[in-house]
């Protein structure tokens, strides 16, 4: 795929579509490509954390630091990440992305500490560390897990599958 031209060929688009299981239309992929170029100012072919942080709406988000670990995303990865937010994505695909955000070391297991870290990002200094641990331990117990359990993707699907997950972002198409 050419890195400086803004013209995507039919082949390029189809390749990307296959990578994200056809969750985006061709128009949407073209729009995303333009957006990718806005975020990749130096035309290096991947998004830099700095450029993402210069979007104030993103920098304000409590999970921005965690998401920034996706530094170095090329266009295909970019689309694959965003495909979970397509209206056509299944609940399972959405939960898979949530799992990935929790599982920062990518070993397929989410530990007590992983969840604690995300909770810390979400609540900041407004809940003490102690209280967070207490709350999480209690919630895990009520759901049938313990503090030492490792949650897998299947566990996530079990817990979140029935909660009517809504996670959709519309790609603006000119």
């Amino acid at each position: 795929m050419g890195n400086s031209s803004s013209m995507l060929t039919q082949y390029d688009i189809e390749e990307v579509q296959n990578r994200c299981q056809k969750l985006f239309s061709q128009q949407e992929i073209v729009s995303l490509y333009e957006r990718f170029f806005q975020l990749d100012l130096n035309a290096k072919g991947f998004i830099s954390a700095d450029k993402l942080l210069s979007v104030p709406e993103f920098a304000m988000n409590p999970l921005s630091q965690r998401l920034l670990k996706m530094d170095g995303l090329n266009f295909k990865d970019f689309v694959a990440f965003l495909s979970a937010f397509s209206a056509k994505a299944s609940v399972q695909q959405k939960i898979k992305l949530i799992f990935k955000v929790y599982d920062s070391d990518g070993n397929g297991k989410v530990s007590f500490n992983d969840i604690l870290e995300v909770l810390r990002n979400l609540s900041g200094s407004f809940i003490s560390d102690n209280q967070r641990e207490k709350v999480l331990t209690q919630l895990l117990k009520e759901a049938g897990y313990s503090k030492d359990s490792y949650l897998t993707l299947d566990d996530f699907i079990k817990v979140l599958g029935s909660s009517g997950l809504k996670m959709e972002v519309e790609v603006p198409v000119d």
Partner: protein
Amino acid sequence: MSGSQEKLKPSSSELDLDRPNIEDYLPSGASIQEPHGKLRLSDVLDISPILTEAAGAIVDDSFTRCFKSNPPEPWNWNVYLFPLWCFGVVFRYLILFPARAIVLTIGWIIFLSCFIPVHFLLEGNDALRKKLERVLVELICSFFVASWTGVVKYHGPRPSMRPKQVFVANHTSMIDFIILEQMTAFAVIMQKHPGWVGLLQSTILESVGCIWFNRSEAKDREIVAKKLRDHSQGADNNPLLIFPEGTCVNNQYSVMFKKGAFELGCTVCPIAIKYNKIFVDAFWNSRKQSFTIHLLQLMTSWAVVCDVWYLEPQNLRPGETPIEFAERVRDIISVRAGLKKVPWDGYLKYSLPSPKHRERKQQSFAESVLRRLEEK
């Protein structure tokens, strides 16, 4: 301010100590319903609303849209139009541009040959010197406007020199200043620039009473605020012109107005400027091109067509804070110039947002969790 990739750092000045609530403007579809009921594990693991907001910002955000250049649509796409377009290019670059450059040079010669003697010979006679320098500055600005074939339509009463009165306008490029200045010699507050622009600033523009600021210095704000106040009180100072956005925006959106101009205890006269995009995109994207290139681009376009509206003077209403006043005036200007308002501070171009906003989100999440813990 040329296109360099400087690392953004959190701003040290109190960028957003007191501003209207951003949450009122941002799309908050996911966070409208307050979750209720006893807290369960799924509630804590379900980060979908926050992830959705993050993805929304990644896909499209109103801040980036403010600074996107909008070049006119290319229309030379077929075999008949292309030669016409080529002819147009030749005409613009080989006939219009040299003619304009000559006009501009003549203008500079006339200006300098009058300005330099007046400036030095009339050192003692301040009042006369000021008057003449004012006329000369208006003259050279008219030459500039002519050099882009500027077609400016002014609407509304021309500004007059009165104390306790400031003018504010939306900002698209440094040429805003030139277009307004050819009609009235304002004293502008601007960022000090390097290069030849800076030279002009420190010599000629000083004579009309312009004030400089430096974005990157935190203490600078107070110093500048004092200078503004002093200037606006003086009876025979040139009227003060302020661009409260603090940065160039692409003439389709308006960013938050800084309150500095609105707490001087003066009448504020809004000015709205709208460029006609069919002829040229007048937005100066200072990160992408230097002012020289921007000027050259204008001088090789067909024309710069714009409307300037001098709007009804506004005063601080009883019980209104300067920020509310600034927002009200921004409203007036945005409506007149057809601009969409966004809740961002223009200075976010140069530094990261303060952690306050993130903290507010964290606080509301924390409170919701703690509250639901109590519920049975």
